[in-house]
């Protein structure tokens, strides 16, 4: 097999490789602090600090917001990166987490999205039913900006994924797209939703995803290319195996057809006044008329049994000649 850079489209491949090298140099800068992440992992449920579970729940919220506002996957991944970096250097109280979540999302949107697609702070607050104000949000954004030194253009696993994917396709001979980028992006998003992957180096995470997909496709060609990429990125076999294992578990969870029962207790349901009125009235309460049993006769609550003895011995429904006419009527 020839070297990566010396294929037909070596111009294209060359450009990609240059970009990959650039990113490889920068990626460590944008990793969350390891000690901070350890602290989060070690936290207990009833401590007044962020636990992995809280972080994951907040990431789910951000995923919904991303989908709702139609923002790109880049925005989502960047927001998670900012969140993890901030959480790893600052001790945040759980009650400030909603505000932090919205701020990183807003900052990420402002970094990535076009002007017209950036959701306004007002809209963000309205949709996520948060109790704080726009000025609170602005203040939090300033703090994040400060603590992260304004370094928002992070190099993320998504960037690597795109580059590796493009590189792999440069070298595919018949030009058919074996690796579906959309699916890989979806899988990456699933990984972002799990705290364990905050520690991973973006290049390793991206490569793990690709490796698993290539294994699924059982394509020898692609496998070779991936090996070359791994060597080029200087990713150790040990690291790759370790993260691949975790990613594989995550994806198994992700692909399971099991649907969890949604918990809508934390959602706020606001309806217009007219609909709210309707909802109150619509449930027709127990009617005033008491039930009349079909076989027996109806007796008032305070009446004596004499009534029942008298009339229940009377013509039963089925024996009366009228029943014949009924069935004819309806036939």
């Amino acid at each position, binding site marked *: 097999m020839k070297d990566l850079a010396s294929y037909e489209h070596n111009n294209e491949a060359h450009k990609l490789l240059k970009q990959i090298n650039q990113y490889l140099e920068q990626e460590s800068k944008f990793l969350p602090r390891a000690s901070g992440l350890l602290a989060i992992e070690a936290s207990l449920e009833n401590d007044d600090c962020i636990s992995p579970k809280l972080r994951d729940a907040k990431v789910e919220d951000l995923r919904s917001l991303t989908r709702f506002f139609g923002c790109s996957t880049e925005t989502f991944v960047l927001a998670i990166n900012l969140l993890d970096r901030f959480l790893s250097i600052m001790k945040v109280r759980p009650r400030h987490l909603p505000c932090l979540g919205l701020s990183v999302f807003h900052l990420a949107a402002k970094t990535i999205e076009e002007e017209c697609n950036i959701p306004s702070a007002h809209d963000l607050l*309205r949709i996520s039913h948060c109790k704080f104000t726009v000025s609170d949000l602005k203040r939090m954004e300033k703090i994040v900006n400060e603590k992260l030194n304004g370094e928002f253009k992070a190099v993320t696993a998504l960037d690597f994924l795109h580059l590796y994917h493009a590189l792999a396709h440069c070298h595919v001979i018949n030009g058919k797209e074996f690796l579906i980028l959309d699916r890989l992006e979806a899988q990456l*998003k699933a990984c972002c939703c799990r705290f364990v992957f905050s520690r991973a180096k973006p290049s390793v995470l991206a490569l793990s995803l690709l490796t698993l997909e290539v294994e699924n496709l059982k394509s020898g060609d692609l496998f070779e290319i991936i090996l070359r990429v791994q060597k080029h990125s200087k990713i150790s076999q040990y690291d790759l195996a370790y993260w691949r294992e975790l990613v594989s578990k995550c994806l198994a969870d992700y692909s399971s057809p099991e649907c969890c029962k*949604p918990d809508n207790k934390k959602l706020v349901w*606001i309806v217009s006044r007219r609909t709210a009125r309707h909802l109150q009235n619509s449930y027709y309460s127990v*009617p005033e008329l008491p039930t009349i049993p*079909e076989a027996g006769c109806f007796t008032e609550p305070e009446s004596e049994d004499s009534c029942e003895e008298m009339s229940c011995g*009377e013509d039963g429904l089925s024996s009366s000649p009228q029943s014949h006419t009924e069935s004819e*009527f309806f036939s």
Partner: protein
Amino acid sequence: MLTCNRAGSRMVVDAASSNGPFQPTGLLHFRDVPAPEQEKLFIQKLRQCCVLFDFIADPLSDLKWKEVKRAALSEMVEYITHNRNVITEPIYPEVVHVFAVNMFRTLPPSSNPTGAEFDPEEDEPTLEAAWPHLQLVYEFFLRFLESPDFQPNIAKKYIDQKFVMQLLELFDSEDPRERDFLKTTLHRIYGKFLGLRAYIRKQINNIFYRFIYETEHHNGIAELLEILGSIINGFALPLKEEHKVFLLKVLLPLHKVKSLSVYHPQLAYCVVQFLEKDSTLTEPVVMALLKYWPKTHSPKEVMFLNELEEILDVIEPSEFVKVMEPLFRQLAKCVSSPHFQVAERALYYWNNEYIMSLISDNAAKILPIMFPSLYRNSKTHWNKTIHGLIYNALKLFMEMNQKLFDDCTQQFKAERQKEKAKLKEREEAWLKIENLAKANPQTLGSFQNWSSLELSMCPVSKNQYQLYIEPSGMNSPVAMETDGPLIDDIQMIRKAVEDQATQAQKDLRKDRPLVRRKSELPQDIYTVKALESHRRAEEIISAHDGH
């Protein structure tokens, strides 16, 4: 003693004697009379209450006697409530007679708009003028029915099918108080007279059929449905075939009528009761609702959504699976509705825990159906409250199964791409046609400088082109200068068009001579003869009559 034996007639009574229409003995109080005499007095009082007074044409007439009747009625109500063994056999026919005389009357035509135009919140119902008396008669009759001494065996001789029929006709009264009494009265009669039950059900069905398919007007549907609710509640299991047919052929078509809002809560209750009795009826009920789903009437749509949620609250999971696909297709349409109340009500389903658990058990089938309408409308709906609800719905779906949601997203995007590609193809095809037309040698010359729009407005037939090109001698396919010749061309075309137009008109007149055909109806010879003989008789009479 003046009694009215004809039901339905009212008479004005002049106070001729000091007792008016009442006999002096009938004006005594029960307490003043020894026990053995009370029955006789009772009957007298009852008969006297058969005197009817006028409350409409002259409300102030006979005020004194009206008061006497009212007092008598009131006294009798007390009498049978607080005394036992006073309802003896001779009393029965008298009581029924009093009721019939006072109540069974032709209802006056309504002065309010009917059906859906009648807004219960705005239009006032025309109340019954004789209510001071009618109310007491109703009250009395009800106490009579509910008395512990009441014996249906004896009463059934007088409370028969004819009585019930006339009672049912009163349900069309505009006065809600009257309908309320009628409801309770019929309810008690249905409860106590087993022999009349089938007849009552049949007659109610007839009323409903007439309402749905003929008149769409009846004021008492809600009250009748309330009675039916208590009957349905008491059905024995397994349900009789007759009752199932009633549900499918009567209750469900009642959803079609325009004035559904008047009786919808009661109707929904009946339907849900049926489903609680027999869950196998779920599929036909839900499919019928979807069939009758309103397409242009939004308040009605909200009502349907209310009813559907109540049905889903009691639905069995096995039945849910049978109806979920068409149901959620309709729900998807509701969620996308531009009417904010419809969209809100549909989205509020996501707040129902039981429905959400049903959805999560069947997410693989349901999510792809709901997905496009939720995804598409997230930001584009004009109403801001809807945004929040859509966000909640999307979030719940996302958390149900992340992969399923992502797959739906991908599929949605792929379909959108396909649509865009098709549109582009179509545009390109049109462009090709246009270019082909431009390249046609006959379009060169005068029309070469025209825009494609102007070209498309010209008549395309070959002859026309010949007409234009020849007279001005512009045969050469050389590019023309824009100014002078072009104006000539326009005038030429205008003239040609005018000629053509007049030509067309002439053709029209030539082609279609005015022919009007009268329809000939066959005439019945007997009818003609009868009419003729009738006329002749009139001539005879007028000859003798001296006007």
